[in-house]
């Protein structure tokens, strides 16, 4: 593959053209242009990566995609769409059979030094915390990663304490790992990754199996880590969560890229979601139905949360424009 590879496959759809009126970048998130073209400002990229497991299952098929630097990235896809395989590539556990992985624009080298470098910069949080936590004490487990970086004991100690503080698990630090609840184990697993101070944190279904409150706390934690300048990548089946949280969405199917872009663009593309065997978020579903009935008048940008949807509706209800005075008759 030439050094100046074409930008990764980009999601474009009519929904984006119809609904994606240029809007400001979302709060503190990165500015994703309407087409979803991350272009050169990607922290990591895959170029034509193909990977098959020894049993012959092809998990990734010439997959090209880019992860925007500093983004909140959600990766969606049905079971078996290649999400986990992709994640293991991002950390160098698996190596592409074809194609290549770029970090900061440079191809990843798979020698010992290159791998150590990649694993320091990309932290992987596994779905099952029990497969990640090996040590008997919380503090010791967190110290494992930084010790592998060859740092001095004082430096490791400082990093461990910082990770404990940042993930707010002070009250768990002296507990044995096997006495923690599932949600607590998840936070400890994140602390163990955070202690290596990665630039990218990749979490495989971080909210699976958590109750709503724990989900909110965990996403809050990921948001804080994002606010400190890290790129956060999550896989999830929860389309509502992805719509509300992410500023960039990647949809996979059968190990191929089906679409990528801003969540409100991707999630308005009903045929694409159907192909990916994903549900349309209820917020957007309601929005699209209202829009299709002409109740929303002039093009409005799609809402991302129930609150935003309520705002859109409230705005129309208090609107005295002609579009509202006879809503049923004046579809735009």
């Amino acid at each position, binding site marked *: 593959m030439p050094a100046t590879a074409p930008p990764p496959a980009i999601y474009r759809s009519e929904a984006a053209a119809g609904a994606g009126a240029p809007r400001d970048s979302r709060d503190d998130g990165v500015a994703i242009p309407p087409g979803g073209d991350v272009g050169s400002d990607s922290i990591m990229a895959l170029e034509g990566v193909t990977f098959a497991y020894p049993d012959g299952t092809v998990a990734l098929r010439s997959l090209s995609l880019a992860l925007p630097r500093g983004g909140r990235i959600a990766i969606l896809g049905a079971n078996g769409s290649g999400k986990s395989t992709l994640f*293991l590539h991002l*950390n160098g*556990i698996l190596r592409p059979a074809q194609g290549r992985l770029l970090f900061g624009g440079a191809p990843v080298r798979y020698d010992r030094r290159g791998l*150590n470098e990649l*694993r*320091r910069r990309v*932290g*992987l949080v*596994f779905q*099952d915390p*029990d*497969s*990640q*936590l*090996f*040590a*008997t*004490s919380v*503090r*010791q*487990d967190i*110290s*494992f*990663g930084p*010790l*592998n*970086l060859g740092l001095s*004991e004082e430096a*490791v*100690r400082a990093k*461990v304490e910082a990770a404990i503080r940042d993930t707010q698990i002070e009250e768990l630090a002296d*507990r*044995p*790992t*096997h*006495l923690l609840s599932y949600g607590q184990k998840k936070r400890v697993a994140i602390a*163990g*990754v955070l202690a*290596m101070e990665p630039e990218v944190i990749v979490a495989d279904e971080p909210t699976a199996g958590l109750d709503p409150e724990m989900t909110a706390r965990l996403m809050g934690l990921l948001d804080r880590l994002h606010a400190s300048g890290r790129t956060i990548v999550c896989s999830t089946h929860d389309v509502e969560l992805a719509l509300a949280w992410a500023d960039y969405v990647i949809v996979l199917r059968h190990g191929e890229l089906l679409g990528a872009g801003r969540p409100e663009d991707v999630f308005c593309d009903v045929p694409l979601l159907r192909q990916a065997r994903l549900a349309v978020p209820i917020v957007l579903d309601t929005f699209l139905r209202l829009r299709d009935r002409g109740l929303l008048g002039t093009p409005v940008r799609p809402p991302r949360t129930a609150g935003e949807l309520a705002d859109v509706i409230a705005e129309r209800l208090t609107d005295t424009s002609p579009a509202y005075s006879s809503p049923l008759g004046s579809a735009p």
Partner: protein
Amino acid sequence: MNPFPIDAYAYANRLRWVHPAEKILFALVTVAICLVSGSPAVCLPALALSTLVVTRLAGIPPRAFWHFLRLPFGFIVVGVLTLAIVGLPAEGAGEIVGLPVGRWRIGVTAESLAQAGRVLSVSLASVGATLFLALTTPMVDIADQLRRWHVPALFVELMLLVYRFIFVLLETAQAMHLAQESRLGYTTWRRRLRSVGLLASNLYLRANARATALFTALSARGYTGELRVLQTQPAWSRRHLASIALADGLLLLLALTVHFGGAP
């Protein structure tokens, strides 16, 4: 919540933050004195000492201590019975009790009884001192101390991994057992046997899958063959060391008196 009460006490007792080496020292020296002396006159006070330390200093309820002592106690009693009951020569050997069994006679002699008493007291005292360590010191602390004593890393790592995954596999086994029971897997003796077999073989497969997942996860955090973690840095206490020296010193003195003084 904790399926192993011993483990729960180890993390929540009043001696939890005492230097592990002090506790290991006390347990080992006490066991050594008992083993070498082999006399009930030394071992029974040693058992009393352990019991006192566990219940008074560590604050573990006496009932709980007895509960943990009971199981090894049962094994020891069964083992000791075979020492107490011996085959007797036909003409008799001054036995206390004798019983003809076919062509032979078995019974209890004063000598065999003393022998059984010795083994019983040595075993109980050793178990008591070991229980003291198990009930007051979490595995992590013991392993850390072994590392500080330069026990080979491979041994300590293996010990900790086994310990950690006891709990993971136990949870898996409990979940599988529940799933089997809810589908009538344990209603008859035959089904019970079959279910246990299935559970065991499945658990083995799960353990393998676990090991693979663990290796992947460790690699992701830069594992290159050594499980290094930060060590705790506990502080020695002179007061504790002095107390241990005093208690075990008295025990040793007792052992020497018994040995050279000709008492039983």
